[in-house]
């Protein structure tokens, strides 16, 4: 039932213009659904383990099936939220697209009369996929989103810098300032390249490098504000 509701919500969202905020809302909805179904499953399982009857085993199987479906749906919707955000920050979506496709196909494999052993096997497929692909692709996407945002901030500052340089009359005075500004921009570009190489090995390292760029961006902003004020004073 919830899948029908979610599908309806998603299709409505597409009709109204699907952006990262709408995708995030869908993700929150799926997360709540999954958390609830997982909690229901855990309770029923505990009850069954305390009192092993056939009726309780069947109840647990049904709750497990619902939870596994909600889990696949959650992964698919979460990856879609990342994909939309990636598109907004001009990142590549090839890897994430194949992951979404995998979860959508896997969700179709569940049958209402699946026996418990089949459900365990299907759950293991997801566990394996998560370990080998999904986790890596998700963190890579998170990094690419941040990298895209950082590059956009740097380029916006560079555009202002170009405009300010064109307004300068006393070139000799400002040249020393411009050298310092160029150095900060250079540092930012080096960090971007370094982080791109780090992401293949460690998300934390790549993220740390990008984090150090925040200080450089603040410095660049401060320098340009100073140049801006000086030009104004000279006029």
């Amino acid at each position, binding site marked *: 039932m919830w899948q029908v509701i979610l599908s309806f919500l998603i299709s409505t969202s597409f009709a109204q213009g699907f952006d990262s905020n709408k995708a995030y809302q869908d993700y929150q909805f799926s*997360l709540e659904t999954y958390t609830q179904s997982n909690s229901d499953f855990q309770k029923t399982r505990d009850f069954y383990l305390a009192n092993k009857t056939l009726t309780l085993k069947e109840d647990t199987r049904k709750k497990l099936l619902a939870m596994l479906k909600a889990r696949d749906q959650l992964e698919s919707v979460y990856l879609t939220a990342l994909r939309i955000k990636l598109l907004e920050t001009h990142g590549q979506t090839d890897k994430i697209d194949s992951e979404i496709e995998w979860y959508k196909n896997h969700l179709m494999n569940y049958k209402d009369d699946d026996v418990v052993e089949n459900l365990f096997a299907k759950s293991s497929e997801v566990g394996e996929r998560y370990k080998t692909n999904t986790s890596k692709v998700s963190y890579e996407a998170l990094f690419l989103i941040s990298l895209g945002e950082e590059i956009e901030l740097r380029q916006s500052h560079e555009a202002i810098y170009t405009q300010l340089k064109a307004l300068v009359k006393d070139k000799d005075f400002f040249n020393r300032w411009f050298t310092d500004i160029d150095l900060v921009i250079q540092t930012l570009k080096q960090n971007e390249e370094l982080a791109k190489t780090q992401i293949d090995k460690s998300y934390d390292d790549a993220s740390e490098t990008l984090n150090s760029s925040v200080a450089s961006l603040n410095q660049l902003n401060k320098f340009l504000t100073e140049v801006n004020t000086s030009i104004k004073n000279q006029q």
Partner: protein
Amino acid sequence: MKDKITQIFTKIWERIPQRIKDVLVKFYTNKKIFWPVTIAFSLIFFIILLGLLFGNKTRPISEIKNTPSATPAFQLPDSSSKDPNSDPLQDLKKKINDFDVKQSRLTPPTINFDIQF
């Protein structure tokens, strides 16, 4: 004419449920309450009527004034913002402060893989 009006009011009175009739009769018989209430409501109604008939129909429109804001140090010639008071460098500074490298909102959800029973 008088008979016609009486007839109409009688018809209306007959349609009113007995319970409400009892309350209305009780209200009318208690003159200490009936007259003050009737006079008070009549006055309110009369004042509203006078207001509608002779009231000033044009509302005074208060002048809207923008809160004075500090002008930017320098307006960049190709600034994309149409607001003359906006400072692109200040806007970017805000974006830097809001920049979340970890993308906290989108960290992967905690998934349960322990399902054996």
